[in-house]
């Protein structure tokens, strides 16, 4: 595989060099003939930044058809063009993304569709709902005259709230009152974990270390499991409840959870006593998140009607998406080719966004690509210059969110001020300085 890759790289460089030979005029690179390199590049960088902001049009389209709020979504594990979505009235839809059309509608459950996951081979998918059932469906549309029926149905003892499938094996995990591991062939769970909690909201398999799981529980805790062990591994209790979590697909021991306290927290699985990074910017509870397949960024959906994109180690978001009509965003997914973001919200729409707001879609010619790379590099080079930074960081926000944000900022500021004052006016050393990261974990068991 290595040699092949190298060959591909060589061929691409070869073609571009041919182009270079064909279209370039021989020139003198003597630096004295091309003076003012810094100012010239600075101007170019400034222009590139401005153009980036001008061309930042992230919204690609919306998929409408659901008759209730979208509660959950799932990506097809083998195809980029298929999306599954489940709504609050138990309806499930399969979408063709390039055509932006619904290709199949199933009344899957009574009550909410709580969770969907695609099997690793992409031939079938599982749903769980409020009616205490786990249903397995065929990915292919039934033929003419056939009824839309699940391949198999498992009736559980209690309501299920989430489901996730193993990366390679025929097992899946559900959560509800307990976290259960199921074999696809059996109608009762192979293993069920519980640890003094009666309701879980989310369970996710680690995509890299495939035997590991993590779940969010209603007692404000995040619990880690190993499928091979009889007991859960570890539990972190935080100040407020985490809604969902997601593992980093490229770095096995990192996961991020979206919390009710408007923040997201990235944890290192091995050191749970404090999060590695606290991601703040939302102004309401964060409901869902998904990592980009490259593991460098993640997207979060919030009750404050916005989607934000964070760098995996960035404390603040690099991008915020919103539209006038988008209401509370309940679920969000990052497409498997790292190009798009899908968000499902309360007002029955699924929206398709670009992951890079100003990116040009479609094929780029080699020269376009080169220019793009150059611009990116320039922006990176001059990113610290105030004017550039001002333009690059500017985002529009709707008035109410803007106000909320200001309010929140004031609140946090006053709290911080008070802390400072307390420290200032007490005996040195008697009031410890607590880092922001240390403030959110209550207990590790």
């Amino acid at each position, binding site marked *: *595989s*290595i040699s*092949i*890759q190298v060959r591909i790289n*060589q061929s691409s*460089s070869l073609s*571009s*060099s041919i182009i270079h030979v064909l279209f370039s005029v021989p020139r003198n*690179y003597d*630096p*004295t003939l091309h003076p*003012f*390199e*810094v100012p*010239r590049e600075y101007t*170019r960088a400034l222009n590139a930044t401005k153009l980036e902001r*001008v061309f930042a049009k992230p919204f690609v389209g919306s998929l409408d058809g659901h008759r209730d709020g979208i509660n959950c979504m799932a990506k097809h594990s083998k195809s*980029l063009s298929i999306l599954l979505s489940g709504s609050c009235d138990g309806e499930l839809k399969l979408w063709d993304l390039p055509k932006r059309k619904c290709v199949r509608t199933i009344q899957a459950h009574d009550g909410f569709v709580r969770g969907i996951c695609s099997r690793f081979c992409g031939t079938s998918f599982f749903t769980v709902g409020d009616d205490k059932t786990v249903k397995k469906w065929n990915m292919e549309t039934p033929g003419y005259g056939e009824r839309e029926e699940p391949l198999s149905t498992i009736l559980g003892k209690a309501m299920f709230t989430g489901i996730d499938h193993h*990366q390679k094996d025929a097992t899946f995990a559900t959560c509800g009152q307990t976290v259960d591991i199921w074999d696809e062939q059996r109608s009762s769970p192979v293993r069920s974990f519980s640890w003094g909690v009666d309701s879980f909201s989310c369970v996710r398999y680690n995509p*890299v*270390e495939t035997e*590991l799981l993590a779940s969010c529980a209603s007692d404000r805790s995040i619990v*880690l499991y*190993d499928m091979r*062990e009889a*007991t859960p591994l*570890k539990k972190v209790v935080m100040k407020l409840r985490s809604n969902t979590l997601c593992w980093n*697909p*490229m*770095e*096995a*021991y990192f996961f991020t959870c979206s919390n009710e306290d408007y923040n997201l927290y990235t944890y290192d699985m*091995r050191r749970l006593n404090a999060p590695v990074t606290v991601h703040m*910017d939302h102004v309401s509870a964060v409901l869902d998140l998904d990592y980009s*397949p490259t593991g*460098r960024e993640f997207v979060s959906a919030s009750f404050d009607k916005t989607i934000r994109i964070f760098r995996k180690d*960035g*404390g*603040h*978001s*690099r991008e*915020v998406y919103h539209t006038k009509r988008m209401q509370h965003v309940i679920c969000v997914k990052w497409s*498997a*080719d*790292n*190009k798009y973001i899908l968000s499902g919200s309360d007002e029955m729409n699924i929206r398709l966004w670009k992951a890079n707001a100003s990116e040009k879609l479609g*094929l780029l010619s080699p020269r376009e690509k080169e220019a793009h*790379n*150059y611009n*990116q590099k320039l922006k990176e*080079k001059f*990113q610290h*210059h*105030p*004017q550039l930074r001002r*333009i690059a960081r*500017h*985002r*529009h926000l709707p008035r109410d969110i*803007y106000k909320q944000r200001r309010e929140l900022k004031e609140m946090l500021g006053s709290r911080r001020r008070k802390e400072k004052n307390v420290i200032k006016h007490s005996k040195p050393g008697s009031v410890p300085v607590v880092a922001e990261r240390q403030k959110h974990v209550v207990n590790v068991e």
Partner: protein
Amino acid sequence: MNAPLSCSEGKGYLMVHTLVNFHIFPLSHRKKLTERSEASTQVSEFSVNAEGEGEKVKLSDLLGKMEKTPKNLNKTKKQLKDLEKKSDTLELPLSRQEKEKIQREVAYVKTSTEVSRWESVVTQNRNAEQLVFPLIQEPSGPKRIEQVVSGWKAQTPLEQEIFSLLHCNLQPTHDPVLTPVEEASLKAMSLEEAKIRRAELQKARALQSYYEAKAKRERKIKSKKYHKVQSKAKRKEFLKKFEDLCKTDPQAALEEFKKMELLRMEERMSLKHQNSGKWAKSKVIMGKYDLVARKAMQEQLEMNKDLTQKLVVPSEDEEQEQEEPKALPDFVNDPEPVGDPANPWMRGQLSAEALGPEVSHEVERPTEQFPERKEEEEEEEPENEEEALLREFEQKRRLRQSEDKGFEPVVSEEQEEFKNLFNRLVEPVILETGEEQGDEGLEEGLVRIHSLDDTELLANDHEASLVEPVPSDTSNMEASACPPSKNSKKVKVIDPSEVLTKQAKVIKVPHAPMMVEDEEVRNEQTTIIKEAFAGDDVVSDFLKDKRKLEEDSMPKVVDLTLPGWGEWGGVGLKPSRFKRRKFRIKPAPLPPRKDQKLPAVIISEKRNAALAAHQVCQLPFPFTKPEQFERTICSPVGNTWNTHNVMRKLTAPKVVTQMGAIIEPIAKDDFIKDKNPSKPQPNLQLTKDSSLAKTAPPGHKRRKK
């Protein structure tokens, strides 16, 4: 008694058990067994009659009997006493919760160590200059047949025979696949290297053929006079050289002389100039009539005389030949090594270079000697050029070889220079690899950007904000504003004049066709200018301005006296002198102006707000020194200043994704080495691939340095 006991329940029980066994058996032998007639729940299996049913056998009861058995008595007694003394109860087994806690702890430690194996991969990926996703790429184009049809087996005897043959030769079964040897050969050399080497070889061969053609041509020249002149000139030159050598280096001259002597002796022994050859005999016959022939004969005889004399300079042709520099390096003519005849790239090294002068190409040595001497003479000049070229090649080759072997190559100055240049180019990139950026988040507002004008506006109001000192939200800014105190330890302020003010070099390019002016015209102009500015005294004006500026910038004395405060006030009354002195505040003198000693210059030390909008006021995070940052800013990336390839390298994106390719999560099998592989891998090809994948994650593409 035989109820299962956990080991934690103490050794006491067991000991009692063995003791009872030990001491009860002898009892039973002596006593008659009592018969049991009714079913009883409490019957000892050792048929000890439980007389007092429900009562326990006390240790003290047993002791009485033990006195009769002398063996080990004392020891057991002691043990029993110890037992009796111990009154504390046995430990309870752990509760379920605690047991689970321990289990959890153990399991957690195990999984976290397991997960930690990813650490190296994670850091590698973070530091990689470029990551290409998907990390493992499927080969494009048609697949090999064995990938499509797995589990196919050779069934007919013919097939089996063929396969066995192929296998024993390590021959791949399908033609797109290369043999291991071929793969190795592909790896042995990169394409560019091979190209360079091939070009060199081609050039060397061409030179050789030119040389041969030339030699041939000259050999065919029939003019005897030409050859004679040639040889004579050569001989003369040699003599001259020899004399020089005698003067400069007598030792070498002596050696040379010895060699000459040896050659002369050989010549004498060969009986060459004895007038006994065919040619000499014919000359003898012709000599009677032909003057020329007679002359030739004479010469021959003279030569003979010379040779037969003892200490005369012998004929020089052989020495000449020694001196004749090699026209070609031997590798050109060397046969390729037998190891891999099909592949020229497989020759990892050149044939051994013969540096000594004794090796020369014998093929070209003509039987006759005189003509050859003449040839040599003429060749020398052009040969030198070719020679130099060839030698250069050889040197390069040797250099490369030594590099291959890992020796420190001898780097020529030119290369050094280039390297420095390249390093300078690459350095900023290395510096910039730290990905962390000023993580201050977005500046969110109510303004939408629709066009370029909007961005301009944004920039403008930013400028405005810069001009009026509005305290920004971050504490960093405050830190930068106040002088470096103890708490702000890492804040370093860049001198704004150092950033973005790289001095441009003056270009000396003729602008337009130069005018040759007449003296008159020039004088006229000067007079005109003089007339026009007759009343102005520019110099004094400038000095005045400067003085004024200096005065303005001087700190002024502040008078804070309040007349009438604490004493009588009114018209004509002045505050007391004491008061005036007390409330007069003299500011500290400013540091000397920079233009103090420069009479013709005014240096303004005020901060330029218009320029400040474009300057970085605080050292960004990954940098520790302002110089580093400046260097990254000053090195241009664009193709105006760099060649195409360099520019492409400099602007290579960190993450490359393919259009429409699903990026799978990183796979354990490809990146983590399994210490005890559970399955032996069946296919040779497969194992090879996987081992490669383990050594280097294929997603990485590293820049050569």
